[in-house]
C-alpha cells in the first residue's frame, strides 16, 4: 500500500458511557462524554490546527494553536483541553482565530531554522503543515535576536538524533517518555526562553533513555529523528506486519522506499501494542540484511569439512536421501525435528507435518520445551487449555498485580509500559523474584511487597500464600463452589491447610519472612481484581509445572479468573512461542493440544493427510540429545533454533550434536548449532515471511512480506520439498492454505483465515463459530475443561543445592537490548548497550572473594566453567548471582545443568550451584568457556 498515515484526532478517546451532541462549524456531532472539542471536531471532519496535541497523549494545552470560539464563552479556549458539553456551538475558523494562530506560528518560526527543503522531515513535519494550515506568509521578527539555531545536535544514540535547534518545546517527547513508556528519562530543563528538552545532565546514550522511540514518534518536527530517515529520506509506502522479537507481538508499519526498510513505526491499531514499541522492535531490524546472512544452501560430509554451496535441488535431494538412509539403517524413530518459536505458525505446522507424515514418527519438539512447556502442562491440568487467560488490555482493570518470575521492563517492555501506566494510576504491586527487578522501585512505582525468595522456592511461596488465604477465611468460596470441582477442592484444601504449607513453616526454605507472605496473600485476595503475570522465573525450575498449577490454584481460590483485570498470564519469551505450541509441535500433541493417543483426533489428521499418525509420544529435545549420545537417534532437522547456545549443559548438547549422522540447520546465520551441521538450508527473516505469529495473549497477527525471500524460497516450501522427496507428497499453494488446513483440523482455530485477519486485523483464539471474532478473555462463565481443577502442589526441593564447593546459586535471564541467543540483536547497533554478558554479584559475595567492579571471574558449576566480567549489584540477594546468555563467547549454558522440570523436562536454568572466583590477573587468559571435567573444551569459545 502507499504510505499509511493514521489519523491523529489530537486527544485520546473518552470511554464515557453517555453521548453528548454539539455543533462544530454548524455540523452536529455526537461523541462520548469527556471527549475534547478538538477530538469531536476531528470526528466531525474538521482538523483544528495543533502542535502540542496528539491522540496518544493526554491534552497539554501549551501551544495555543488549537484555539476555538464557543458561543456564550469568553475568549478563545484551547480545543484540546476543553471538554464537549451538550448543545455547545463551536467555531474552529474565524478571522480572530486566524489572526491569533498566525501570530503563534510566527513566533515559533522566528526561532526555527528555515531549512525545510533539506530537512529530513520535509513533507512529514507537523510544524511545516501548520505553517501552511494557518496561512503564515511572513515572519516579522527577523532572526537577529536571541535564538536556539546554533544549539548542538546530540547524535549519541545509534538510532536517532536530537537536534534542539528544531525544537518547539511542545513537550510531546517528554510526555511520551513519561506517560507512554513510563521511563521519565526526559525533562524540560530551564525556564522561559531557556527552556529545552534534556535527557538529564548527559547525552541520550548516557541517560536513562531506553530507546523505545516513543519520543521520536511523538515529535512534530525533525528535532528527534530516525537516523535512517536522515540517511534515506522519508518513506513512501507501508506494509503492516508483526515484530519478530518477544511474545508481546507488536504490530508495526514497515515504512519503505522501494524494498528498503526506512523505519518501523508501531501501529496504533495493533491490538497488542496500540502504537508503542521497544528498542528491539522499532530499531533492531538491520540483521535482516546483515552481510552474515547466508542465502545459498550448503552441504558437507562431516561437520569439520568446509561447506560446499549447492543448488536448492541438490540440498533437498541430499537431505531427503540421507534421512531415508538413516531410517533404513537405524529405524523409523532415528530421526526427528525441532521447530522454532521464531518462525511463523505456517512454517512450524509444515515441519511437524513433515515429521509425523514423511518421517512417520512423533519426534518433533519445539523450543518452548526450554521455556514455557510447564505453562502448557500446568494450565491445561487446572483450566483445561494451554494458554494465558487475558488480553494485555485487561491489565488496565487490575487492582492488584502480582509479577512472579518475570522482568517485563527488560523482556516484555511494551507490555511493561502498559502495566506501569496502571501501577502509576494506583494499582498495587507484588513482586516475587530473587532479584530486585526494576519494577520493585521505579519512578512513581513501588511494589507493596517484594518477596525476595531463594531461587527454586516458587512453589513454597505460592503454597504459603494459598495457605494464608484459606486459613484466614479470605477465599472466594462462592466462586469455588460454582466454578470448580468440589472433590478436587476438598482434597486440595486438606493438603494446603497442612501446617507444613504455612508461611511460618516455609520461611526457612524460601528466605521470605512469613509476615510478608501473609501480607502479600491478603493483598492478592482483597483485589477486587487481582492478576498474575509470570515468566521463565516460574517455568524454568525443577517444579516449573507445579508452580504454574500453584498460581492457577490461587486464581481459582480467590475467584480471579474469567473477567477483565484478573487471570493467570504467561509472558511468553519469543514472538511465536504460543503459536509454535498451538501448531502441534510437541511430541505428544497434535495442533490444539490434543494428545496423539486420542484415536478420534488421529483419525481426523490421518484422513486429511492420507497417512497414519503414531499413537505414542515422540522424543522431547533433551531426550533427543540423550538418544543421540546413545546412538538410537541419528538425524535431526533444526528449524531456526540455536540449541548449541540456548540449551543447558552445552557439553552434553555438543556431544549429542557431534554424534549425529545428519544435522540439518535451517537458519539465517551460521549459528553455533550449524557448526555441527551437515546441511545448511538458508532461512528467511520476518521481513520476508508471509504468515502469522501468535503472541502471549493468543492474538493471531499477520506477518506480511516486506521484501521477497532473499533465498528464493519460503521456509515451508523447502520443508514441503524435503517431505515430497522422501516419498510423502506435501504442498500448499500459499501460506494462507496452510492456515486453512490448521483451521480444518483445529477446533480453536476453526474461524481463522488470512482473509479474516486481513479484514479485522487480528483475532485471539479460540476463534470459531461461537466466537467468530475471537476470545480476548478466557474461562468466562465456565472453564474450558468445564469445572476448574485444583491440583495439589507439594513443594519438592530441587536436587540442585548450594554446597561448600559450589556455595552460590546462579540464575540466568535476559536484558532489554538483546534477544535470546543474540543472533539477531548482536547484528545490530544494540551491541552498544550490551556487548557482553556480565555476572551480577552481591557486594558481600564479591567482598568475600576479593572481587571488584569489572573484574574477570570464573563461574564454575559441577558441569563446566566460564569466565565473565563481574558487576557488583545490590539487585542481587546475598548468595545468588545472575547473568544473561546472549553472547556465544560467554558460554553461559556451559555451566547450567541437566536438571529439568519433573513434568515437562523444561531445563532448570534458574538454579545452578556455582562458585565464583577471581581470575588470576596475569597472564591474562582468553575470555571464553571451558569444560571442567573431562578437560575437553566446549567449542563455543571464540565464536
Amino acid at each position, binding site marked *: 500500500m502507499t504510505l499509511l498515515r493514521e489519523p491523529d484526532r489530537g486527544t485520546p478517546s473518552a470511554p464515557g458511557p453517555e453521548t453528548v451532541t454539539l455543533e462544530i462549524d454548524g455540523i452536529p456531532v455526537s461523541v462520548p462524554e469527556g471527549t475534547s472539542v478538538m477530538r469531536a471536531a476531528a470526528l466531525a471532519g474538521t482538523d483544528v490546527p495543533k502542535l502540542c496535541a496528539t491522540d496518544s497523549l493526554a491534552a497539554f494545552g501549551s501551544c495555543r494553536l488549537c484555539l476555538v470560539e464557543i458561543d456564550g464563552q469568553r475568549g478563545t479556549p484551547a480545543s484540546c483541553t476543553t471538554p464537549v458539553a451538550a448543545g455547545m456551538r463551536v467555531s474552529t475558523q474565524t478571522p480572530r482565530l486566524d489572526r491569533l494562530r498566525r501570530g503563534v506560528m510566527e513566533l515559533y518560526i522566528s526561532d526555527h531554522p528555515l531549512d525545510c527543503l533539506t530537512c529530513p522531515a520535509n513533507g512529514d513535519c507537523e510544524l511545516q503543515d501548520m505553517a501552511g494550515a494557518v496561512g503564515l506568509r511572513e515572519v516579522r521578527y527577523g532572526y537577529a535576536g536571541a535564538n536556539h539555531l546554533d544549539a548542538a545536535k546530540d547524535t549519541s544514540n545509534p538510532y536517532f538524533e536530537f537536534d534542539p535547534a528544531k525544537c518547539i518545546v511542545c513537550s510531546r517527547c517528554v510526555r511520551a517518555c513519561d506517560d507512554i513508556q513510563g521511563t521519565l528519562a526526559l525533562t524540560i530543563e530551564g525556564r522561559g526562553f531557556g527552556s529545552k528538552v534534556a535527557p538529564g545532565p548527559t547525552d541520550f546514550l548516557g541517560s536513562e533513555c531506553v530507546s523505545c522511540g516513543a519520543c521520536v514518534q511523538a515529535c512534530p518536527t525533525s528535532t528527534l529523528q530516525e537516523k535512517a530517515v536522515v540517511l534515506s529520506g522519508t518513506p513512501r509506502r507501508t506494509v503492516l506486519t508483526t515484530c519478530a522479537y518477544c511474545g508481546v507481538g507488536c504490530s508495526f508499519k514497515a515504512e519503505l522506499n522501494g524494498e528498503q526498510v526506512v523505519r518501523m513505526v508501531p501501529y496504533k491499531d495493533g491490538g497488542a501494542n496500540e502504537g508503542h514499541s521497544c528498542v528491539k522492535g522499532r530499531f533492531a531490524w538491520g540483521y535482516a540484511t546483515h552481510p552474515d546472512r547466508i542465502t545459498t544452501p550448503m552441504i558437507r560430509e562431516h561437520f569439520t569439512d568446509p561447506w560446499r554451496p549447492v543448488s536448492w535441488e541438490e540440498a533437498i535431494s541430499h537431505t531427503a536421501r540421507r534421512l531415508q538412509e538413516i531410517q533404513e539403517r537405524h529405524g523409523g524413530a532415528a530421526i526427528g525435528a525441532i521447530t522454532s518459536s521464531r518462525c511463523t505458525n505456517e512454517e512450524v505446522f509444515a515441519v511437524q507435518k513433515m515429521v509425523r507424515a514423511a518421517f512417520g514418527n512423533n519426534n518433533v519438539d519445539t523450543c518452548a520445551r526450554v521455556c514455557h512447556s510447564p505453562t502448557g502442562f500446568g494450565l491445561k491440568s487446572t483450566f483445561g487449555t494451554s494458554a494465558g487467560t487475558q488480553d494485555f488490555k485487561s491489565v488496565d482493570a487490575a487492582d492488584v498485580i502480582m509479577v512472579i518470575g518475570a522482568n517485563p521492563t527488560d523482556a516484555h517492555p511494551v507490555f511493561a509500559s502498559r502495566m506501569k501506566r496502571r501501577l502509576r494510576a494506583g494499582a498495587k504491586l507484588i513482586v516475587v523474584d530473587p532479584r530486585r527487578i526494576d519494577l520493585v522501585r521505579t519512578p512513581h512505582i513501588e511494589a507493596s511487597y517484594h518477596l525476595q525468595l531463594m531461587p527454586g522456592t516458587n512453589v513454597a511461596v505460592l503454597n504459603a500464600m494459598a495457605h494464608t488465604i484459606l486459613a484466614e477465611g479470605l477465599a472466594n468460596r462462592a466462586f469455588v463452589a460454582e466454578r470448580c470441582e468440589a472433590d478436587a477442592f476438598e482434597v486440595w484444601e486438606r493438603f494446603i491447610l497442612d501446617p507444613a504449607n504455612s508461611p511460618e513453616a516455609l520461611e526457612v526454605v524460601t528466605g521470605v519472612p512469613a509476615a510478608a507472605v501473609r501480607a502479600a496473600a491478603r493483598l492478592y485476595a482483597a483485589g477486587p481484581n487481582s492478576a498474575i503475570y509470570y515468566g521463565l522465573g516460574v517455568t524454568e525450575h525443577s517444579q516449573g509445572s507445579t508452580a504454574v498449577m500453584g498460581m492457577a490454584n490461587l486464581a481459582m481460590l480467590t475467584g480471579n479468573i474469567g473477567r477483565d483485570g484478573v487471570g493467570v498470564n504467561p509472558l511468553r519469551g519469543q514472538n511465536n512461542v504460543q503459536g509454535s505450541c498451538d501448531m502441534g509441535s510437541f511430541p505428544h500433541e497434535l495442533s490444539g493440544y490434543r494428545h496423539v*493417543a486420542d484415536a478420534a483426533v488421529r483419525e481426523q489428521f490421518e484422513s486429511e493427510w492420507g497417512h497414519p499418525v503414531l499413537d505414542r*509420544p515422540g522424543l522431547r529435545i533433551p531426550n533427543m540429545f540423550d538418544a543421540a549420545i546413545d546412538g538410537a537417534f541419528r538425524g535431526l532437522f533444526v528449524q531456526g533454533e540455536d540449541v548449541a547456545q540456548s540449551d543447558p549443559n552445552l557439553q552434553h548438547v555438543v556431544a549429542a550434536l557431534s554424534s549425529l549422522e545428519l544435522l540439518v540447520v535451517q537458519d539465517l546465520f551460521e549459528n553455533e548449532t550449524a557448526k555441527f551441521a551437515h546441511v545448511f538450508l538458508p532461512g528467511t527473516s520476518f521481513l520476508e515471511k508471509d504468515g502469522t505469529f501468535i503472541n502471549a495473549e493468543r492474538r493471531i497477527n499477520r506477518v506480511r512480506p516486506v521484501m521477497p525471500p532473499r533465498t528464493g524460497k519460503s521456509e515451508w516450501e523447502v520443508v514441503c520439498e524435503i517431505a515430497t522427496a522422501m516419498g510423502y507428497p506435501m504442498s500448499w499453494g500459499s501460506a494462507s492454505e496452510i492456515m486453512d488446513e490448521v483451521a480444518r483440523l483445529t477446533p480453536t482455530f476453526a474461524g481463522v483465515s488470512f482473509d479474516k485477519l486481513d479484514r479485522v486485523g487480528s483475532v485471539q483464539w479460540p476463534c470459531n463459530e461461537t466466537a467468530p471474532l475471537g476470545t480476548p478473555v478466557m474461562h468466562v462463565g465456565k472453564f474450558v475443561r468445564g469445572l476448574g481443577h485444583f491440583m495439589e502442589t507439594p513443594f*519438592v526441593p530441587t536436587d540442585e543445592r548450594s554446597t561448600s564447593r559450589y556455595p552460590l546459586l546462579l540464575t540466568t535471564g535476559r536484558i532489554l537490548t538483546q534477544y535470546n541467543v543474540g543472533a539477531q540483536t548482536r547484528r545490530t547497533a544494540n551491541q552498544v548497550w550490551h556487548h557482553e554478558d556480565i555476572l551480577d554479584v552481591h557486594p558481600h559475595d564479591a567482598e568475600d572473594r576479593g572481587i571488584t567492579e569489572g573484574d574477570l571471574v570464573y563461574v564454575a558449576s559441577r558441569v563446566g566453567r566460564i569466565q565473565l566480567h563481574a558487576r557488583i549489584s545490590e539487585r542481587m540477594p546475598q548468595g545468588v548471582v545472575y547473568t544473561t546468555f546472549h553472547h556465544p563467547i560467554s558460554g553461559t549454558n556451559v555451566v547450567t545443568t541437566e536438571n529439568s522440570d*519433573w513434568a515437562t523436562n523444561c531445563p532448570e536454568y534458574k538454579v545452578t550451584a556455582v562458585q565464583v572466583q577471581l581470575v588470576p590477573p596475569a597472564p591474562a587468559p582468553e575470555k571464553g568457556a571451558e569444560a571442567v571435567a573431562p578437560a575437553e573444551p566446549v567449542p563455543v569459545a571464540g565464536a
Partner: protein
Amino acid sequence: MTPSPESELAELRMANQIAANFRHHPDDQAAAEVANHLRSFWTPWMLERLERLVDSGGEGLDPLVVRAAALLATPAA
C-alpha cells in the same frame, strides 16, 4: 548398542523426579499417576530403557517408579 551410563542416568533421574512429585498420594494412587505420566509423555524408547533399568534390579530407582513400571505393562485405563 549398549546404552551409555550417562543416558541411563537420565531416565533414572527423570523417573525418580516424577515419583517425588506424586509421593504425597497413597502408594497405589501414586504409582498409577506415575505410570500415567510416563505413558503420556515418554516415548517408547525411553520406556524400554526404564524397563531395562527395572529388569536389571532397579538400583537407584524410587520404589514408586518400579511399581509404576509394572503398571505400564498393562493398557491404560
